[in-house]
């Protein structure tokens, strides 16, 4: 079960590219793409830059008009999906 304090890392088999406000993730193990828009793409950029999840959550709270509970819920749901697709893993 992921929480905001779960340490995460982007696996070496994942590549990504940012286009405008979107990000495209590639799992090179199965050649599957995954697209993230706006908040999801920003989260990815923060994680890739080395931010811990709780820190990224705080930054997103400042950058987007969203309440804390909704954001946390949405982030964890997204990250579980990314984890399921082997695009992110627990460090």
């Amino acid at each position, binding site marked *: 079960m992921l929480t905001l304090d779960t340490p995460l890392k982007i696996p070496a088999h994942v590549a990504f590219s940012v286009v405008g406000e979107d990000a*495209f993730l590639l799992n090179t193990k199965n050649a599957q*793409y995954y697209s993230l828009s706006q908040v999801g793409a920003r989260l990815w950029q923060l994680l890739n830059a080395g931010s811990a999840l709780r820190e990224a959550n705080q930054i997103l709270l400042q950058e987007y008009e969203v309440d804390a509970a909704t954001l946390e819920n949405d982030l964890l749901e997204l990250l579980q999906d990314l984890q399921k697709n082997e695009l992110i893993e627990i460090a």
Partner: protein
Amino acid sequence: MLLAQTRGWIDGKERGVEVFKSEQGLLLRVAGYGEYLIHAGSLPAGKPEIIFGPVIVLAQALQNVWSLHASAAQHGETLIAFLGESGAGKSTLSAYLNKQKNWRRAADDILPVQLEDGQALALPRLIPQLKLTESQQPAREMPNALQLCAVCLIQTAEENAAPALVKMNAAQTTQTLLAHTAGTRLFTADLLKRHLEFCAQAAPLLQGFTLTYPRKLEALPSAQKLLETLC
């Protein structure tokens, strides 16, 4: 020198493929088939349908030339690629446009593209169009490289709907390029990464559109008029 070693679905079977760079060109070794030398302006003898399929696409990708599963047509100086699922009408549209004044077909099924000096360049002479006869090959009258201006994702509309051209943003165009590149099942992890970079870099350089029209010949003149607004 070995450029790539991979496996892919070729001619109904999963086969090993090795690509070597030699002084004469690219040497492709397809398990169960043999070796084929590919160099500019020459078609390999033997089983060309194997080569013209995913293997030659792989060989081009290794040189950063990406093969869009697309037809294409040029109007004046404007080259437009038409992408879509098999049966979407790519070939029909480019064949129709080829018969219209000031239009000429640049590709029927595969359009090689590379990035150079901040431009997306189509290379229509690089890969023969398999479904066209020798006399129909568009490359005969084309320069080696043409700037690709726009990509249109063809979608089918209801029978009585008017054709429509709707702009895509760069992310949607990226998604379209990713989904409509040929041969990706043969790509190694490194090639997949380079392909993603290509699509992300090419999309902002192109105008991306969805072109929606009913699948009937009567709709093509209206589609043509819409496309001419891009030129």
